[in-house]
Structures are given as structure tokens and as C-alpha cells.
């Protein structure tokens, strides 16, 4: 996982976008590309080797999130898991008699927001709940939005831009009382904080391997036993008929290994990362006037820091820092190329110009104090330089 050897000056602070696969993960994958290439559905020996790898990984994934192996469906990643959960539950539960209703929040990842928007065109009513200024949904507002025809509540575990943790357990209570299915996009929680499906109270939970040192293009949907859901992809009978298509065995094996390692090291890694994040935030607040840490007063995953540097644009900061060797993002990675300010920061009530002046620093286990020192040396200089250029004059 230490791939910074070619160039000593590359510092990766964008772990919410993706992470590099750990060495052990790559090793766990390699045999399944060629030597053990079988199709996990085949009865012969080759198939059995592949099947064993898939089932071992299923147990490892289940164990990371306190689930049973039979409650894990492999998918191509967080986006597909979100789609399967939302579309699959609505398809299973909707009746011709009345217009179905779904509750979600205005800070979800596009994989949830755009899926809900697409369902609106298919006759589903969707409520997009607001958040408070710290970026958290309130369970009371979820409760107030519930209608007799509400089929599904989908609220994420931790936000990808701010790291703010949502009150899942309280929302689960609302869902349970109403007999409503509850989906949690835990893509930014799994591997960053302990995530227990039972404690979260989710009926469905999305996770994605590449956010915690696993391979890209593989993820899982946890489906609590007894939850009504229909397949979205039609085809073969793989994954209990819920996800047709030949299993991506190497990626599944790597995903399992990433889960195993994460469960082992999470405590130590969290403490290290939290300490670095706190150093970064203290350093920024001390060295740069007129900045704000978004979501700072809320409970957050320990690796994420979202900063508004007023009077400059996040894109300019990000590109400047990139030339100096620091990789981080402005807005969310998916919003790059769009000039719209982050929908998450806007939902938190930030002024659009301030929202455009925001960057996200997301740390990982391999980051060091030296990297933080270098960053705290660079950022104030870059911010000052861009501010010199700004026609907007601040108080300071």
C-alpha cells in the first residue's frame, strides 16, 4: 500500500475517492486470474476452487460488518449496491394500488440521489430531507416525513465530502416502527470506523472495496435475512438470483482480504489517522485566516477534513497543490469537471461562493506526520498566493 516510491514528493490525501490495494490484497487476487480461473458456478474442480474463494471472501466481508455470510451479495461496487437496494426494494414492495414513497437525504452520493431521481420518473414520490448546518440528517425529520405509503428510507452512514456520521440507529428505529425498509450507504464508513449491521439497524447496507485498500469494481450489498428485494439485473442465478453474471473471483478474493485486514487493524489505524487529521485542522486554523472546517462540530469519521478557504476557488487550490505534489479534491471526485458547488455543502447552508472555495482532505493509514508537516507548510502559502489574486478583499 506504499506506492509512493517512484516520486518521494507525492502525498496522497484523497482516500475518500479511492485507495491503493494493499500488497496482501493483490497477492490474494493473483491466483484467480489464471491458475485458478474457474467459474464459481461450475461443478468441476476448477469451479470448486473459485467457489471456495468466493465463499471465504463472503465470510470475511460478513465478519467485518457483523453479518452472516448468507446476507452478503457481491456487486460491482457501491454504485451498484445502492441501485440494487433502492430499485430492488421499491420493485419488491410497490403495489399498483398506491404511489410508493421513498425518503432519502439531500447529501447522499449521486448513486443514491440520481437513482431516486430516476425512480421519480417511474411514478415514485421521493422526499429529499434537508440537513442541519453541521451536515447531519435528523431522525425527527425522517419520522415527520413518513407516510402510510413509505416503502424505503435511504440515509448514508458517513458523508463522503464531510465525513459527518448520520444518526442511523435512530433512523432505524423510525423505519422499524413504520415497517419500512432501511437502506444505509456505508461506503464511506466501512473500513474507516467499526460498522456493525445490527448496531446500525440497517435492512440493507452498501459497501465498496476500493475505499479501504481493496480492488476497484467490487462491493457488496448486505441484505438482512427476510428483507423483500427483487433483482435489478436479469440473467443467471448467481448470488441467490439477486445479481446475475459470472462472479469476479479475483476481485472478490481481494475484497475479502481487504475486509480481513481492516478488521484486524482498524483500531490502530483509526487512532493514527485521527491524530493526523486533528493536526491538520489545528494547523490550518492557526495558519490561515478566514477559513472554516465544515461539519467540525458533528461526529465524523476520523479521516475526513473539509475546509472552506474563503475568497478562492477549491479547484484552483487543488490544482496548485497537485503541482506541488499533494493529491486532494475539491467538491467530491464525481463533481470534478462540473462547476456546480457541492450539493452537500449547499445543503448545509454554505454560501455558493464559499462552497466553491472548499477542499476535502481525506487521510489513510499510510499517511505520515512528515506529510502533514509538508502540507501545513504548503497550504497557507498557496492560499495566500491565490488570495493575493482575488478581487474580493476580506477583513484580514
Amino acid at each position, binding site marked *: 500500500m506504499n506506492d509512493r516510491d517512484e516520486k518521494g514528493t507525492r502525498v496522497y490525501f484523497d482516500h475518500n475517492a479511492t485507495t491503493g490495494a494493499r500488497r496482501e490484497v493483490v497477492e490474494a487476487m493473483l491466483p484467480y486470474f489464471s491458475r485458478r480461473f474457474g467459474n464459481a458456478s461450475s461443478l468441476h474442480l476448477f469451479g470448486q476452487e473459485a467457489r471456495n474463494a468466493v465463499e471465504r471472501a463472503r465470510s470475511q466481508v460478513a465478519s467485518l460488518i457483523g453479518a452472516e455470510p448468507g446476507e452478503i451479495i457481491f456487486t460491482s461496487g457501491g454504485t451498484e449496491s445502492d441501485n440494487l437496494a433502492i430499485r430492488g426494494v421499491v420493485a419488491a414492495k410497490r403495489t399498483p394500488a398506491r404511489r410508493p414513497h421513498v425518503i432519502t437525504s439531500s447529501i447522499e452520493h449521486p448513486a443514491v440521489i440520481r437513482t431516486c431521481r430516476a425512480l421519480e420518473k417511474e411514478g415514485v414520490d421521493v422526499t429529499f430531507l434537508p440537513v442541519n448546518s453541521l451536515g447531519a440528517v435528523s431522525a425527527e425529520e425522517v419520522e415527520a416525513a413518513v407516510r402510510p405509503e413509505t416503502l424505503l428510507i435511504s440515509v448514508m452512514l458517513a458523508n463522503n465530502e464531510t465525513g459527518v456520521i448520520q444518526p442511523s440507529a435512530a433512523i432505524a428505529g423510525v423505519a422499524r416502527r413504520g415497517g419500512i425498509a432501511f437502506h444505509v450507504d456505508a461506503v464511506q464508513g466501512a473500513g474507516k470506523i467499526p460498522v456493525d449491521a445490527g448496531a446500525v439497524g440497517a435492512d440493507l447496507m452498501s459497501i465498496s472495496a476500493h475505499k479501504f485498500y481493496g480492488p476497484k469494481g467490487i462491493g457488496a450489498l448486505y441484505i438482512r435475512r427476510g428483507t423483500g428485494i427483487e433483482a435489478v439485473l436479469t440473467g443467471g442465478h448467481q448470488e441467490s438470483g439477486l445479481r446475475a453474471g459470472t462472479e469476479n473471483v479475483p476481485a472478490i478474493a481481494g475484497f475479502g482480504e481487504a475486509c480481513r485486514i481492516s478488521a484486524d487493524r482498524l483500531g490502530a489505524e483509526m487512532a493514527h489517522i485521527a491524530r493526523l487529521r486533528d493536526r491538520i485542522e489545528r494547523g490550518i486554523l492557526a495558519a490561515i485566516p478566514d477559513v472554516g472546517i465544515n461539519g467540525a462540530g458533528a461526529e465524523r469519521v476520523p479521516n475526513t477534513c473539509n475546509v472552506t478557504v474563503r*475568497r*478562492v*476557488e477549491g*479547484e*484552483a487550490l487543488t*490544482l*496548485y497543490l497537485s*503541482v506541488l505534489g499533494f493529491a486532494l479534491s475539491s467538491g467530491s471526485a464525481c463533481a*470534478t*469537471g*462540473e*462547476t456546480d458547488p457541492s450539493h452537500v455543502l449547499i445543503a448545509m447552508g454554505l454560501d*455558493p*461562493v464559499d462552497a*466553491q472555495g472548499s477542499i476535502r482532505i481525506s487521510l489513510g493509514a499510510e499517511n505520515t506526520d512528515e506529510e502533514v508537516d509538508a502540507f501545513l507548510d504548503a497550504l497557507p502559502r498557496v492560499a495566500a498566493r*491565490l488570495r*493575493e*489574486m*482575488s*478581487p*474580493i478583499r476580506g477583513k484580514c
Partner: protein
Amino acid sequence: MEFVDGRFFDHFMDPRNVGRIEDPDGTGAAGDPSCGDWLLVTIRVERGKIGEIRFLCRGCSSAIATSSAMTELAAGKSLEEALAITASEIEGAVGGLPEEKKHCSLLGEEALKNAVADYLARREKGRPGP
């Protein structure tokens, strides 16, 4: 975004003519200070030519780079020549821009035109009546 051209980074990291002229002969702005890129251009006119030009920009990398390139294109030009500078010329001076950033070069063209127009309007007003 992919930038391959060194000229882009040169203008972005080391922009020319940053600042604001005190008592300028003309001031022009483009963009929107309340939401998004905002460019402010000030010029000094000497013997019918742009003697000095400075810019301030709150914007993305492309807005900053193209603003800088625009000031280099405009410096020393006659007012007519300055008014004829186009967004695509400005874009060319930074080696091209990705599709979604092309509008940034318009900012430079517009602010420069506004600054020259401001100069011409002031001169008109300042002139003693017939």
C-alpha cells in the same frame, strides 16, 4: 481534468500582471462576484495604447491562466487591437482548454472589452462640450 500544455501551468502558477492599477484609465469586470468566477481588469492608456494592464481574479485555474494570458496579449496593443482580441486567441495562448472550461477564456475577452469601453466612455464624458 487533463492539462498537457506547459503554457497553461506557466500562466496559472506564475500569472503575469496581477494587481489593480491605482486611478486607472479604465476598469472592466466580467463574471459574477456573488456566484463563481469573477475577473477585474484595470488599464492605463498611453498614446492610444494599453500602457499597463493588471488583473485580479477569483476563479478556477483556467480563469486565472486565461486572465494572465489575456493581459500579455493586450499589453502594448492599440485600443482597436485590444478590442479585437478574442476568447479563442486567449485560449490558444494557454495551449487550449478542455470543453467544460472554454467559457473561462470568454471572461478575459469580456473584461478587457469592458475596460476599454470604460476608458472610451470616460474620455467622452471628460471632453469639453462643443
